[in-house]
């Protein structure tokens, strides 16, 4: 009897899963039809010769010294945009974390939660476009854009860390007569500090990646050089920039992987 039931259940599950697969397939098919895209026909003969000619122009990257210096400068600009933005965002988020964790009552909590969600859900590129209007073209606009977005993300993460942290040490200090601020600094902060640091570093990694492309809307860094060179149809130079971007991403990826493994090992 129970076997029969089980079999029936299995059968039912399969009908459901077949239906899901059917719906997904239909959705995919609809997407291609709606866009007028034939996946087998994207690379028709006339476009493919076009593509090959276009790609060919990328295979002679411009390695002249002055241009390499410019790219080196762009890399440093990208790094400093991301570092500065992450630092500023971390400082702002520390301020947001306290109300966000409900330390100043429920109203302050829902207000900061709303602010964080708002800052977080506007994409960096949109912030960058707005900031370019506010402070003009250049890396400062990129820094501000990344700061705003990251403050939203970190504000929420910091707040959650604070909420999940055990309040025992803090309470013990308050009960034995210490002030609120001292209790926070000595009771709570040392406990959450490593977590905050690791969130900040993780966001920095993402911001480096983001800072390379913010330049597309004129917010400085490597992206701005790439956009400029591509607009002038100078593919060799553009290809050098793309290689630099790729190298930057790979280096950052490797370092953060190594750090993560090291951290895992140190934690046992």
């Amino acid at each position, binding site marked *: 009897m129970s076997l029969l039931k089980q079999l029936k259940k299995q059968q039912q599950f399969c009908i459901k899963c077949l239906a899901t697969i059917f719906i997904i397939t239909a959705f*995919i098919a609809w997407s*291609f039809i709606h866009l007028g895209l034939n996946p087998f026909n994207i690379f028709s003969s006339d476009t493919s010769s076009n593509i090959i000619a276009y790609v060919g122009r990328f295979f002679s990257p411009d390695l002249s010294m002055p241009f390499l210096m410019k790219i080196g400068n762009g890399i440093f600009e990208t790094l400093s945009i991301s570092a500065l933005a992450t630092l500023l965002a971390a400082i702002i988020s520390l301020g947001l974390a306290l109300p966000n964790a409900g330390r100043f009552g429920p109203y302050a909590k829902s207000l900061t939660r709303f602010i964080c969600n708002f800052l977080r*859900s506007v994409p960096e*590129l949109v912030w960058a476009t*707005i900031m370019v209007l506010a*402070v003009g073209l250049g890396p*400062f606009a990129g820094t501000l854009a990344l700061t705003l977005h990251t403050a939203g993300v970190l504000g929420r993460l910091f707040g959650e860390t604070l909420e999940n942290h055990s309040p025992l040490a803090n309470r013990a200090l308050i009960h034995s007569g210490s002030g609120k601020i001292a209790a926070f600094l000595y009771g709570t902060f040392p406990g959450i500090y490593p977590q905050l640091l690791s969130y900040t570093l993780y966001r920095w990694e993402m911001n480096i990646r983001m800072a390379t492309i913010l330049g597309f809307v004129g917010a400085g860094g490597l992206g701005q050089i790439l956009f400029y060179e591509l607009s002038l149809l100078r593919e060799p130079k553009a290809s050098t920039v793309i290689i630099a*971007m790729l190298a930057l991403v790979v280096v950052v990826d490797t370092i953060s992987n190594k750090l993560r493994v090291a951290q895992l090992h140190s934690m046992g």
Partner: protein
Amino acid sequence: MLKLAQFEPWLLFNFENLEVIGNFLVQFFPPNHDEGFLWIVAGATIETLAIATAGVALAILIAVPLGLIISHSLSISRIGPGSDYLFSKLIRFSARFLMLVLRGIPEIVWALLLVRVFGLGPTAGVLAIAITYSGMLSKVYSEILESGNTLPSRALLVSGSGRIAAFLYGLLPSTAQELASYTIYRWECAIRASVVTGFVGAGGLGQLMDQSMKMLNGGEVSTILIVFFLLVLLADHLSLLIRKQLT
């Protein structure tokens, strides 16, 4: 570093700048709700959905073979004392390199390049997402295949079955759920990404937003932003629903 980033906070309070940004932000309220414009936004939203779906579908087609090639758990050369596996090592290495290039270059850069080949419009967006996401998906597929229970597939390989049979009978049954759920999660990310690629002219909501931004039309921008949030929220819930359905 402060100098390199041209850190000049006083620019924020420059009168002319304040006037420009102020005028722009004031227009955000009320959001533009002309019927004609709303229809355009609806069309762009559907286009964004279609771009993300088509892009991820193409990405899966590329990512599955790449993931299978890269994954260690399907490697015959790793099982026994082999004599000469230089060839297969070379293939694996080049597949890894290809994956790195696909994944390492951000999707918006791909979109910018592809717009020059295919012209403005959704084709470039679909391909940009297909390229970047095939790199990401193949990496994660190979990791999932390695982290699962590899004993059945190993047993099959040792007793002489082919790689594909070993994958289908040894690995897929235990990892299918994780693979599917990760793919759907990526689809959700692709929706966000397709808005971003639109900024360089690759179709969808992003392209519309870029146009409105350039015309400093705050009302339109705020409408599009609201629709974007709703879309992300919807995708979030839909992907949760499908993932629950699969378990």
